[in-house]
């Protein structure tokens, strides 16, 4: 059974103040197998965040439905962890308490909570910042905490909405490798939205290109590059070939979107 099945999902936002309704997504079908790493590329405003939010259960599709592990999605749940495009750390909690937020709700014993929190603080290079408040962190650091917070909860499905958008190139590269490592170790199903074509190829087992709004799936490319992957792959001919092909697709859509 496929892990995530998106069936005929569309989303139309009603017009505000008598305006035209916005068709954010035209009906989309997408099937994601368990442990797939799917990256989603597409021009700004084509409905990538909308699609992710619908899978997360934070928004309802206008038509169609999403099935996760054979059950229809009716609302959000801890089986689908999400990292948002905006900064969503709880400003009143320290970094460590933010990471532990989901564990607390689940009633994980304190000692185990601390172990998990320390593990992800280390992984994301934030060990020294456990007691800091989010406002004392840079944007990129906050986003790393948000990733740690989602991972600490150990969801089956990870929904990542441009999680590395605010990071510098070096940190971004390290975070990509970290995410790949976690994915290879833990085996999770990942839906990853990004604007960065290289990132989309480097991470993915499958890369989806969406059209300009209203978003449809324009291309669905299997990325059969060898694993485990590391940064050397980024300069390989095989990756560059994918890059060339996807760049063409994206460019055409970006021009349409303008």
């Amino acid at each position: 059974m496929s892990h995530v099945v998106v069936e005929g999902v569309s989303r139309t936002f009603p017009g505000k103040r008598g305006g035209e309704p916005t068709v954010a997504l035209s009906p989309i079908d997408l099937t994601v197998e368990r442990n797939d790493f799917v990256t989603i590329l597409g021009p700004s405003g084509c409905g990538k965040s909308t699609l992710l939010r619908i899978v997360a259960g934070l928004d309802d599709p206008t038509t169609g439905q999403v099935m996760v592990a054979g059950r229809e999605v009716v609302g959000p749940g801890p089986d689908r962890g999400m990292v948002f495009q905006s900064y969503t750390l709880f400003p009143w909690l320290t970094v460590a308490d933010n990471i532990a937020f989901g564990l607390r709700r689940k009633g994980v014993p304190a000692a185990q909570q601390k172990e998990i929190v320390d593990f992800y603080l280390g992984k994301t290079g934030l060990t020294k910042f456990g007691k800091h408040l989010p406002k004392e962190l840079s944007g990129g650091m906050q986003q790393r905490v948000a990733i740690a917070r989602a991972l600490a909860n150990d969801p089956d499905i990870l929904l990542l909405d441009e999680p590395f958008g605010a990071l510098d190139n070096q940190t971004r590269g390290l975070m990509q490798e970290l995410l790949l490592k976690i994915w290879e170790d833990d085996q999770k199903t990942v839906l990853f939205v990004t604007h960065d074509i290289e990132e989309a190829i480097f991470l993915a087992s499958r890369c989806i290109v969406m059209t300009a709004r209203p978003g449809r799936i324009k291309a669905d490319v299997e990325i059969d590059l060898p694993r485990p992957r590391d940064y050397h792959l980024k300069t390989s001919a095989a990756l560059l070939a994918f890059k060339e092909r996807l760049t063409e697709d994206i460019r055409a859509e970006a021009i349409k979107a303008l």
Partner: protein
Amino acid sequence: MRPLTPVSRRARIVLGLSFFVLFVAVWSVATFGGFVRPIFLATPIRMIDEGWRLMTRFGFSYDIAITVWRVFGGFVMATVVAVPIGILMGAYKPIEAFFEPFVSFARYLPASAFIPLLILWAGIGEMQKLLVIFIGAVFQIILMVAVAVGSTRRDLVEAAYTLGTGDGGVVRHVLLPHAAPQIAEILRLVLGWAWTYVIVAELIGSSAGIGHMIVDSQALLNTGQIIFGIIVIGLIGLISDFAFKALNRSMFPWSLA
């Protein structure tokens, strides 16, 4: 001057104090200079003199204590009732739809206009004074707390849901901590208003309290005492406001810029 640029702590204190100095100076010129007749406005010296007599000979500290007690009593009653209702209204829209129209209406009912009614219902005892403050504060707190809770960032609520929080958990672990600093600020504001209600309540049908003293002094045309009473109210308000502010700041360090 550049907008929004902060001043140093020293400069702030100096500037703040200098207005008080200016105020007393203008007052002194007006009274000592003979521009205003003493029957309308006492001199600062006379005011202090009267104040000293009030404190030492007429047991004015007892009146102060009574008034403080009334303010805090009524304020605490209003807080205990209003904050939970406000939180429920902010969190649950049907509850808001149920209460909001009435509370918005009741908010404009002037607390002082209830005094004759309250005397009828509760006599001229302490309960009547507390109820004036209660009525004056409770609807305001309800509405403002509801707005504060209702304006919680949606993305934080959504993040909590994706981390496995239930509906009740979102209220407890997101809406409440998010709104807590604003609720504390609302209470500070309303405590300030409670001071004005209490004096009005004490002007009518009262046998003790700062407001009662002021009415007595008016009968004797003793403007020195009246002004001393007013200044005492201002000072107590200032102190309680400072204390409230310091408490809020220490409780919610994350909400400061």
